[in-house]
């Protein structure tokens, strides 16, 4: 019995309802993944703390080798950027924020006559820079949801290769995860590694400082440092990947919550419009029947019979509501 407009509205409401169910499910999934991602960030911390502490101890014991990863460049002509974004969209401004910040940093470098190289992590990052015709040195995808240490090793290897071949500096662009409601894009220096960082980290370490007698080394400090520094770079990249992944899930949860809320509001509005349309149709029909009855009554017809008809018809119409 529904009129044409009513039918169309009903179909739209049904479609919005289906969409709402999807966005709601995505919201819940993202929410549960944030918790897991946060746990992974926490689980990765002891290793990077310990690696940092060991390097600090090596450095203080005079193991400060002239390692390429520690060499401050005299002049910077080329900067490599490691940009970490997501594999999927539907997470609000998460991808765009970090990618645009990277692009701006590259433009700022270009203004000062410095060239760039790009190492990208995440399908969206690849799409973004490919579309804009940037030169991409290396791209990785498929792990932004749950990065593993092996993934971090791959990305770190690509960054190290650029650093050893022409780039004097490597910057890391990713989204830092401060809390559930607070994430921010950061572009931080990644290579060369700064020994100053290690001294500070040593102060924060709870082991109560180095031992009195100094360390024994096996093999000599320089060799250990040479093996340890790449690990340190990997651990830092790994923690950046994990934080980015936690931020991604947080951003997705927020975006999907907004989408679910919007769908709900849209549904309420459309239901209201649909009800009004049906009410109008019913009113019009009753008016027509009453009008017809009036006309018949004036000519002296059977009014009783007609009022029965009207009642039956009205009941029909209201039943059509359900």
């Amino acid at each position, binding site marked *: 019995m529904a009129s044409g407009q009513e039918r169309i509205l009903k179909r739209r409401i049904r479609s919005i309802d289906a969409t709402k169910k999807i966005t709601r499910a995505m919201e819940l999934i993202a929410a549960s993944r944030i918790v897991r991602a946060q746990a992974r960030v926490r689980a990765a911390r002891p290793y990077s703390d*310990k690696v940092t502490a060991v390097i600090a101890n090596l450095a203080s014991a005079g193991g400060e080798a002239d390692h390429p990863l520690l060499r401050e460049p005299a002049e910077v002509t080329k900067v490599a950027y490691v940009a970490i974004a997501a594999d999927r969209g539907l997470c609000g401004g998460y991808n765009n924020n970090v990618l645009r910040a990277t692009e701006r940093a590259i433009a700022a470098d270009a203004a000062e006559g410095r060239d760039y190289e790009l190492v990208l992590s995440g399908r969206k990052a690849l799409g973004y820079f490919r579309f804009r015709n940037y030169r991409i040195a290396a791209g990785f995808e498929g792990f932004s949801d749950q990065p593993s240490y092996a993934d971090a090793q791959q990305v770190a290897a690509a960054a190290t290769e650029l650093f050893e071949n022409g780039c004097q500096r490597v910057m890391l662009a990713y989204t830092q995860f401060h809390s559930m409601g607070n994430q921010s894009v950061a572009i931080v220096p990644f290579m060369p590694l700064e020994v100053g960082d290690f001294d500070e980290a040593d102060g924060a370490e709870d082991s109560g400082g180095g031992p009195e007698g100094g360390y024994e080394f096996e093999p000599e*400090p320089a060799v250990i440092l040479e093996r340890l520094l790449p690990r340190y770079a990997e651990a830092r990249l790994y923690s950046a990947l994990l934080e980015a992944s936690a931020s991604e899930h947080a951003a997705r949860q927020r975006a999907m919550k907004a989408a679910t809320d919007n769908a709900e509001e849209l549904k309420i509005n459309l239901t209201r419009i649909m009800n009004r349309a049906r009410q109008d149709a019913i009113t019009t029909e009753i008016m027509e029947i009453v009008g017809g009855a009036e006309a018949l009554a004036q000519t002296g017809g059977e009014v009783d019979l007609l009022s029965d008809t009207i009642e039956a018809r009205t009941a029909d119409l209201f039943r059509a509501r359900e």
Partner: protein
Amino acid sequence: MQVELVSPEAVLFSGECSQVVTRTVDGDIAFLDHHAAFIGALDIGQTQLWASDGIVTLALNRGFVEVSNNVVTILSDAAYAADEIDVAAAQADLEAARAALAADDDDDDAKAAVAWAETRIAVAGAA
């Protein structure tokens, strides 16, 4: 003494041990209580921890060890206890690595892969 075994992804072991035996690039080394401060780079090999509830044997794929203030910290990229080792996968790795080594006997990666597979099989077999 306190022993911490830490991989990049998690803390694998944390507890009191009476003795730790591991292998640095220069050879096997054992730590007892109050060992002198020490930093070493670890080779591929077995590590044994004398924990309160028995000896834990692990296969370690390189890493580092630091000893200070009666705390032994082992950092490793990959450390597996016997029950976590997939022997079939290790066996397959071993054959692949031996084949690579047969083709090029200077291939360091293949040599490391052979050592790593053999260590895993040995640890799994000892349990």
